């Protein structure tokens, strides 16, 4: 049985002390260990931002790309070798801001990917500007008079985009988050795991205490996954009470299930050296 430390990378995190990202990193390592996933068969893809540093702290194959493009890269990895366990790591700026278009398309595509979004409702690495999930009227260096736009609701977007696994965790609730990530990895299809994660440096509104006063577990209140209409009601709940857990899960064939050329073998394992174009040349005669 693998242990969490087996997934420990060689680099030490450079996140601020008490950053919510530590909890997510710990939960990911615990989930990988519980599922006994080989490090060499796991690829962690990230973008740019505090969240993007995650692959540096894991002993798997890692791809830290450019800002907002986690999902296209993860899609390329998965289509090249769908036997791999592919985890995307995004942030609220990376995934719900600059990378929003890819997010919607990845969900309708339903590749077997796990997408964990570090959602701290603020830009960290660029020093505290407003993010797409910042509260209405949140003040920041880029919005000194408060955000005029309404915040993005990632879970509702996911429901509207036919994502087949939709969940929310809290970085401090380690065991619950570990179990959500495990369920997400085990789910055959696209899994969105939005993780509330306080930014101790730049977000003085949505603090640990702020979340802890509001969060509750869906399961503990008897919520049963399955009915999409109820999932909508829960996805829209935000304010005095914030639900955590798995909101929605459904089985739908994955994208790779329907790609003809990779039914028998992963693309990377198929020898392309034998491509004989003679029949195609004949058609040009």
């Amino acid at each position, binding site marked *: 049985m693998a242990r969490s430390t087996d997934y420990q990378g*060689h*680099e030490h995190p450079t996140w601020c002390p008490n950053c919510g990202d530590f909890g997510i990193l710990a939960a990911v390592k615990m989930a990988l260990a519980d599922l006994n996933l*080989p*490090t*060499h*068969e*796991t*690829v962690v*893809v990230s973008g*740019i931002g505090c969240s993007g*540093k995650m*692959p*540096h702290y894991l*002993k*798997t*194959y*890692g*791809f*830290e*790309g*450019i800002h907002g*493009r986690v*999902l*296209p*890269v*993860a*899609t*390329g*990895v*998965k*289509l*090249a*070798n769908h*036997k*791999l366990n592919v985890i995307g790591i995004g942030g609220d700026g990376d995934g719900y801001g600059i990378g929003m*278009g*890819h997010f919607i*398309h990845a969900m309708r595509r339903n590749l077997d990917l796990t997408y964990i979004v570090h959602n701290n409702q603020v830009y960290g690495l660029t020093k505290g500007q407003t993010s797409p999930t910042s509260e209405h009227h949140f003040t920041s260096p880029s919005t000194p008079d408060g955000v005029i736009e309404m915040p993005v609701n990632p879970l509702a977007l996911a429901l509207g985009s036919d994502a087949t696994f939709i969940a929310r965790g809290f970085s401090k609730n380690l065991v619950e988050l570990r179990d959500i990530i495990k369920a997400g990895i085990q789910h055959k299809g696209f899994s969105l795991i939005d993780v509330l994660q306080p930014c101790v440096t730049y977000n003085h509104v949505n603090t640990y205490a702020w979340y802890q006063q509001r969060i509750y577990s869906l399961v503990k209140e008897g919520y049963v996954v399955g009915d999409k209409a109820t999932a909508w009601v829960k996805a829209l709940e935000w304010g005095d009470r914030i639900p955590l857990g798995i909101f929605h899960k459904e089985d739908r064939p994955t994208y790779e299930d329907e*790609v*003809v*050329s*990779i039914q028998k073998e992963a*693309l*990377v394992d*198929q*020898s*392309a*050296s034998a*491509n*004989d*174009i*003679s029949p*195609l*040349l004949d058609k*040009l*005669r």
Partner: protein
Amino acid sequence: MDKPHNRGIDLNWKIGGVGGFGLQAAGALFAKVMRRTGFYVFVTHEYPNIIKGGHAATEVRVADTPLTSHRDGVDILVALDADTITRHAGEMRSGAVLLYDTETVESVPTLADSTIRVIGIPFVKISRETAKMDLARNTVAIGASLALIECGRLDHFMAVLGLVFERKGSDIVTANQRAAQAGYDHVGTENSHTFACSVPSGTPPDTILVNGNEAMSLGALAAGCQFLAMYPMTPTSSILHSMAAWQKNFPLVVKHTEDEIAAMNMIAGASFAGVRAMTATSGGGFSLMTEALGMIGMMELPVVCIMGMRVGPSTGMPTWTEQGELRFVLHASQGEFPRIVLAPGDVEEAFILTAEAFNWADQFQCPVLLFTDKHLSDLSNTVAPFDAHPITINRGPLLAKTNAAVGEPFARYALTENGISPRTIPGQAGGEHISTSYEHDTWGYYTEDGSVHVEQTDKRMRKLEHALDVLPKPVLIGPAKADVTFIAWGSNKGNIQEALGRLAAKGVTANFVHVVVLAPFPVEALTKILTAATTIINVENNATGQFAGLLREHTGIVPQHNMLKYDARPFSPQEIVDKTLELLKK
């Protein structure tokens, strides 16, 4: 204008009408018939950026010797509407024939050249009578055209119709064959065989009729390309269509992505995971890809990108040709990183260079960019069949799965003598590593250490130091000594090749330096060739002479003349001849 050939062995057939009439398909049919008869053909298309409507035309040049270019002067103009006559009547050479549809063209204007024969045929009416539809008007027109040409073979047309319409059912085949026969018969003895020529004797040459995009797609497939991610954009969209259709028969996955940003990032992911990956686009899409291109350079991933130029800036004139993106592609994305940039000049080079691009990408672990333009992408030419196995696949220093007993952690960016480091792919135990878009150390870990940045920059730049030893050299076409030396890149190759012969006939000896590799720049080879040149003329389809500037930057050589054309059309051989003679007078 060209002088007419009495024997009709170099015949230019043009069909024009409203976009959506199936003119490109008609051109392909006529070209296939002539290819079957043993001739060489060269097909070009012009069309507007409209799905249905606007004016479109297709030109098929037919000759009994191999062709490298289209040419000026039309011998048979098939006008399916009056607009075609207005636009193209002036292109007809003396002795030409205008075939027009008597139902759509109310009156034919008086043509200045009285040697042009005007023949009205009710194409649509015949189409309705014989095939019960309007669409077979093209078939009627081709039938009539074949009757005008002594070596026009109706039997070959019948066979081609059988093959082309096979999947639409035998009813469609016979309907078209009836239409073809009726068009042929309608010409009558008075006009038949207006163009005297004989069918080439002996066994017809074994040729294929292929366009630039098909050639590049086939090259990619032959090289074992396993993954294409792209977003459709003129002029490269048909690469997406061809390769998508091959997925069921080859180990190939084709993804039409949500945008070009996704396309470039997706092939980066696929390449990281170990498959041969490619994208294709045009300037607008490439603009979106540039950030990921730099990431690929930083991560040292092998990818191939086809960049099809059209008329810019911005959306420009999407369905027309230009060479305005040379500098853009050479410098795209922030920072400095090595890239290989290639410019095939014809369909044969498009095929082989695309195939080899995959090897070079793997060997040098860098992006390989291939230029095409609307002209090359769209033109079809008869050439000797491509080699079905043109290259031996070389994946470069890609460690095999069995060879994974490597250190911990794996030094993906190890400082090697030639700058190229062995790489592992996911699935390979012991090969775990991170690739990051940040500057990194030998293990791939993020760094802000200035000396490491210098080491890694030097390592990356070192990779292409000896690349010119394996990349194709500039080619000198024509006599070693000449009055005029043309220099050009990309699709001007064929036009200039033909111009050399035409200039020789005028007593001007000319040769031509065809530059295939634009980065790394072949400084020594070009300097050597050009130092021996008397008068250098740089030929480019752009307004600013981008290549001339590049040549000067790298070699200090300044061409005596720049022959620039940016009216959205390719040079014709005669245009090059006329402009050269003009320049030499100066």
